[in-house]
Structure formats: structure tokens, C-alpha cells
């Protein structure tokens, strides 16, 4: 064959492919518009939620029946609900509660799923079979059905929410991590570590996981959105945080009887959830672009 040795970086698009340093420069995270937009959105919301007592002087719980169902005004930026509580205040405090629960709730499935997924992926064999069967069993239940059933059975309150979400949510992390490890463990650096006599645990912990965890982390962003939706849904059905604590879901529930007259009571809390979801999705997509190997 008429072979002509081509040095690296040559070939059809030789002049077009950027060098490695250029690729790194382009991928730097602050240059990603999606990622930055998402961070800004979430940042603003989180700060607003945390600073709620500073922003608004109203109490989210105290009722004031003389001021019920007022429209938006200078006193009440978003009006009041049927028990006279300021909607804007309840929105901020509701975000506080729901975001807090969601951010905590995502941790347990993340850890549990990553551990089980790593074990399944790395050791294979019957460990893999068992874990995958567990996955199949959990996945057989629709997400909301199982979460609602578990919260019902365990009783209302935050603890039930965490248990229910963990039981149902570990599955996606396990799948992702298992998939990544299946690919990664065939890489040469793993074979080198194994032949060097390192224990399995060490290989998994120090060599495989750090590379694999980025995918799980990206998924976690969309998982937080899922969890927020779940918490808000539970709140809507009265299965979430018990009243009178402000909660976005129960706010929507309270407002649904006044849909035709005071639509903002139902619409605004949902809109807040959508915006949070947007911000987190942008962060997730932006991270995915930044961390994608070898592309600008």
C-alpha cells in the first residue's frame, strides 16, 4: 500500500483542528453562556430565599382575614391569599423550605446510587445481577406513585420525604455510574493499577471514581429539579411539609379555587418552580459541555 506517514495533527482538517491548549481555553467554564446564565439565575433565587426575612417584613404564617384576597398593590406586591397572608412573603419562604429540602434530598440517592453502581460496575458477576434486579424492581413503579405511597405509609414530614426520594431516586445514579465504570475499567490506567497490586477499593476510590463522578454530578442537577417537582407535588396533595408552613405546592393547592379571579395565587408559585428548573437545567447543560472530553 502506498503509505505516507502523517505526523499527528495533519490530515484533511489539519489546519482546522485547534490545539489542545486552545481547546482548554475555549472550554473554560466562565465562557459558557448557558452555565453562567444558570448560575446567575440560581444565585439570585437562593440569595433571595436566604435573605427572605430581610426582604419582606411580613410573617408568612400569621393570618389576617380582613386583608384576604387582595390584588397586587404597593403593600402587597403579589397580593394576599384567602387567609390574608402576603403572597410574596409566602413565595420567598416557600422557596426557602422547598429548596432546602430538595438540595438535601438529592444527596442520599446520589451517595447510595453511586456506591451501588460502582460495586455493580466494578465487580460484575452476581453483585451486578443483584443490583440490576433491584433497579428493575424500583423502576417498575411509576415515580410519583411510589413516592406518594411511601410518604403516605410513613406519615407526613420531612423525614418521610427523604426516605421516599432516596428509595426511588438512587436508581438513575446507579445506572449512570455503573455504565461509566464499565467503560473506564477497561482503560489502561486501571489495568496498570491492578497489575501493580492495588486493592480493589483503592482502585475504585482513587482512580475510577473521580473520573466517573462528573457524569453523576451533571445528572444530579436535573435530579434536583425532579426532587423539587416531587416536593411541590407532595405539597399540592397535602402530603409534604405540614401546614401552616409556607410551601409552594400547598400554595398552588390553596389558589386553585380562585383560578378564575385571582390566578396569580396559583400561577406565581409554579412559575418560580419553572424558573428554578430552568436555572438548574442550564447549569447541568453547561457543565455537560464543559466536561465533555476533547471537544470545544
Amino acid at each position, binding site marked *: 500500500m502506498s503509505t505516507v506517514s502523517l505526523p499527528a495533527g495533519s490530515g484533511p482538517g489539519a489546519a482546522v483542528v485547534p490545539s489542545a491548549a486552545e481547546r482548554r481555553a475555549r472550554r473554560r467554564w466562565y465562557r459558557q453562556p448557558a452555565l453562567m446564565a444558570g448560575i446567575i439565575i440560581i444565585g439570585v433565587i437562593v440569595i433571595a430565599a436566604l435573605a427572605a426575612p430581610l426582604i419582606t417584613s411580613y410573617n408568612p404564617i400569621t393570618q389576617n382575614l380582613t386583608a384576604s384576597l387582595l390584588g397586587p398593590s404597593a403593600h402587597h406586591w403579589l397580593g394576599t391569599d384567602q387567609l390574608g397572608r402576603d403572597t410574596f412573603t409566602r413565595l420567598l419562604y416557600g422557596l426557602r423550605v422547598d429548596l432546602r429540602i430538595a438540595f438535601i434530598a438529592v444527596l442520599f440517592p446520589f451517595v447510595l446510587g453511586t456506591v451501588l453502581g460502582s460495586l455493580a460496575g466494578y465487580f460484575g458477576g452476581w453483585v451486578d445481577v443483584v443490583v440490576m434486579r433491584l433497579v428493575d424492581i424500583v423502576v417498575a413503579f*411509576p415515580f*410519583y406513585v411510589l413516592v406518594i405511597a411511601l410518604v403516605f405509609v410513613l406519615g407526613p414530614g420531612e423525614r418521610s420525604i427523604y426516605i421516599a426520594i432516596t428509595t426511588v431516586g438512587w436508581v438513575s445514579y446507579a445506572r449512570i455510574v455503573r455504565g461509566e465504570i464499565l467503560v473506564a475499567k477497561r482503560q489502561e490506567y486501571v489495568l496498570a493499577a491492578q497489575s501493580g497490586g492495588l486493592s480493589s477499593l483503592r482502585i475504585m476510590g482513587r482512580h475510577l471514581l473521580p473520573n466517573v463522578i462528573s457524569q453523576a454530578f451533571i445528572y444530579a442537577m436535573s435530579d434536583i429539579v425532579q426532587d423539587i417537582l416531587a416536593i411541590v407535588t407532595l405539597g399540592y396533595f397535602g402530603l409534604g411539609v405540614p401546614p401552616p408552613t409556607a410551601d409552594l405546592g400547598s400554595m398552588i393547592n390553596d389558589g386553585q379555587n380562585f383560578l378564575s379571579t385571582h390566578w396569580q395565587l396559583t*400561577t406565581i408559585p409554579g412559575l418560580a418552580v419553572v424558573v428554578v428548573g430552568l436555572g438548574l437545567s442550564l447549569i447541568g447543560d453547561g457543565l455537560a459541555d464543559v466536561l465533555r472530553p476533547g471537544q470545544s
Partner: protein
Amino acid sequence: MGRMAFVGRRLLQLVPVAFGVTFIVFFMVHLIPGNPALSILGIHATPKAIAILHQEWGLNRPLWDQYWLFLDRLFHGNLGQSLYYGQSTTSLVFGHLAPTLWLIIYAALLSVLISVPLAMTAASRQGGLRDHVVRAVPLLGLGMPSFWLAFLLILLLGIDLHAFPVSGYGNGFFGHLRSMFLPSLTAALALAPVVIRSLRASMLTVLGADYITTARSKGVPGPRLFFRHVLRNAVIPAVTVLGINIGFLIGNTVIIENVFAIPGVGQLMINSIFQRDFPVVQGVTLVFAVLVVLINLLADMAYAALDPRVRFD
């Protein structure tokens, strides 16, 4: 013969799943704080009734024995007695099944009708304005609570336009078609972001494939190229995605039936939760799992029917 073996193999894989699912449903009783018998019997909990239940269900015996008894009852179609309605759970569930099935099928169809053209538009002009607009849909859509979306639709289409009823199931085929439109549209829109995203990706892959270039070089005209070559290949991963997400669609019915007051299995579940009608909650959870598993099996078979490479594995 290959197809039968394929189905057989899938069914065999379902056996451990079936055991697992029934075990979880069974175990729910024991998660309730307090005496399980009280939860099951509710206001009918006389000491005599409790004693009978302990005997029938073996509540004093080891867990495995109880599970076995549970399976035995299940096999005979006995899911317990509804505390609230006084009927057998099984008959209650089957009575509520039809509207839910309507919702699922209608929503799946609408979802396809919405997603395919949008994905097609985006894929055919990758990077263009339409593409970016379509790609923005999942960003917004994934964060939307479906009941909120329902209210939005009710506001816009139901109340303002009086075009469609906002509650109830309707009468007769066309009554169902009208009454179920808003609920199914809500469910379809909730599912659409995910389907659009993956359909677009698979269409892009297909459009860039070599065999499309071959077809073009044969002089295959536009419409035929799209339907027999592009779409025919792009549906395969789309069916897989739809199958994976059908669980999500089914789970959504719980919420949507509640918002639109549809007398389906989902509403049955929520009502039973409020009425603390434990046996029904247990039964409905099981039925939902069965639905998901069945539909996944159907999706797998559809996939095998569509992709000739599968039969020979």
C-alpha cells in the same frame, strides 16, 4: 421462532421483578407505624376482627410466611377489602381502569403528534433558529409541575375559550374525546420535552448516516427519503425512549386525574390516601407497577418488530 424466544426470555427476566414488586407492596403494611391490623381494618377493628386477620394473614408469623400468604391471596385475585367503599379492592380498581387507559393512550398519541414535527424541524436545520427554539423546550418543560401546567391550560383553553370541559370523563366515545383532551394534552406536554430531545438527537444521527447519502445518490425523492429511510430508522430509538418514559407518563396520571376530576385509578389512589383506605392504596400501587411492566414489554416487542437486527441476538 426467534421472536417467540425473545418474548419468552423477557418474560423470564420479569420473574424476579414480579417477586420484588409484590414484596414491596406487601411490605408497605409493615412500614406503617403502629399495629398493621388497625391500619388495614380501620373502624372495623374489633378485637375479634383483629384476631381473624392475624389468623388469615399470619401476622404473628415470620415475614416470609406472611409474604407467601400474601402471594397466595394475590393469586386468587384478592387484594383486600376497601375500608371506605366496602367493596373488594380488585373490583374497585377494575371499575376505575378505563378512564386511566384512555388517558395514557390519548396522551401517548398526542405526545407523538407534537414531538415528531418539532424534532423534525429542529433536526433538519441544525443550529438554526428553529433548532434553538426547540432545544429550549426541554429546559423549560422539565421544570414544570404537571398540575401547574394543567392549571395554565385550564385557564387558557378551558375557562377563557370554553373550548374543552375542564373536569369529568364525559359520555360516549366523542364525549370522552372532548373531556379527555385537556388532561391528555397536559400529560403529553409534560412528556414532550424528553421525547423531543431524544427524537431530535436520533434524527440527527440518522440524517448524517451513510445510508442516507446512498439513498440520495440513488435519486430517491424527498418525501420517500424522509419516510422510508430517515423516519423509519429514527423511530427505533424513539420507541425505546418512549418506553423508558412511559412510567413517567403513567405516574403523571395520578396528578392529572386529580386536577381534572377524572374517575380513574389515579384519582382512586389519591382519594384512598385521604380516606386512609390502606388496602386500596396497596392494591393501586401494585396495579400501577403491573401497567408499567406490561407497557415496557409492549415497547420492547415493538422495538424488536421494528429493528431487524434485534431478532438475531
